[in-house]
């Protein structure tokens, strides 16, 4: 198809060939993607639940966010390595997969939201309703990313 040449090229890269080589390569990278998922989304969800006021109430959202930040970043790094690796293995099909497209839109929104409004909402003087709103939006965005990811294999 027109416009697919970049994605076709991706599938011929050495790392794509490695992903399509041994049988264990894809499941191993996918498992690492899930470890990254738990770190990235798991640590953000902890802050979200605090922003909503329903978990970890013995410390402030700001304290929690500061303590978890490094682990969120490790999770993000793991996702940004394993995700593109899996994408390269079958780039043309993923590129046309509506669930994948949905996931990428939600992921972009979730990341932008995380590094702007979400981060600001963890500051001490945030009004409660703003904190709750940020926590709810963040949770909804990340849940959409995970749901979109799960659906890729089914459409």
């Amino acid at each position: 198809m027109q416009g697919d040449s970049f994605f076709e090229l991706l599938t011929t890269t050495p790392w794509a060939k490695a992903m399509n080589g041994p049988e264990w390569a894809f499941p191993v990278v996918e498992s690492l993607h899930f470890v990254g998922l738990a770190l990235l989304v798991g640590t953000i969800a902890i802050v979200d639940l605090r922003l909503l006021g329903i978990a970890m109430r013995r410390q402030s959202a700001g304290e929690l966010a500061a303590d978890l930040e490094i682990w969120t970043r490790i999770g993000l790094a793991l996702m940004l390595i394993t995700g593109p690796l899996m994408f390269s293995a079958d780039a043309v099909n993923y590129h046309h997969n509506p669930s994948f497209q949905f996931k990428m839109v939600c992921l972009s929104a979730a990341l932008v939201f995380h590094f702007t409004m979400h981060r600001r909402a963890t500051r001490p003087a945030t009004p409660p309703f703003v904190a709750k709103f940020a926590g709810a939006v963040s949770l909804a965005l990340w849940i959409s990313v995970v749901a979109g990811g799960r659906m890729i294999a089914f459409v």
Partner: protein
Amino acid sequence: MNVLSALEWVESTNLSTAIREGALLYPIIGGVHLLGIALFGGMLVMTDLRLLGWAMRRRTVSEILEQFRVWKRAGFVLVVLSGLLLAWAEPLKLYRSLSFWVKMALLVSVGVHALVFRKGVYEDAKALDAGLTPRAKLAAALSLILWAGLLVTGRLIAFDA
């Protein structure tokens, strides 16, 4: 009644057929299973990293353990229930999957781990506020390994013939 005919009966139930053959039910339940891992796996990992002394060191061990406990339990129930539904949909396939049996063995180990380390670690978190013990660190390391093993074998089930 032998095992295989019992599993064949499971697969013939309406619930099993509905999950297996419906367009949306299987991915939705799979999504809930994955969301359980995403939302509560982080708490499990952070609890273990705190017990190892690698994360959230500004907070005492008991604060972390006590505050995560109810959420980790809820997450565990969510993952197990959605997992049971997924298993109910295709028991014969799982019966023949080596990865599934390794995963079940790991799940039993999780139960043993909980029993072994309840005393001295999870039920005695206050005592750990004074200092982390080798026993607590061992519990955390084993917990992380078991959890990673469950993730990998769970994923591998989809790749078994």
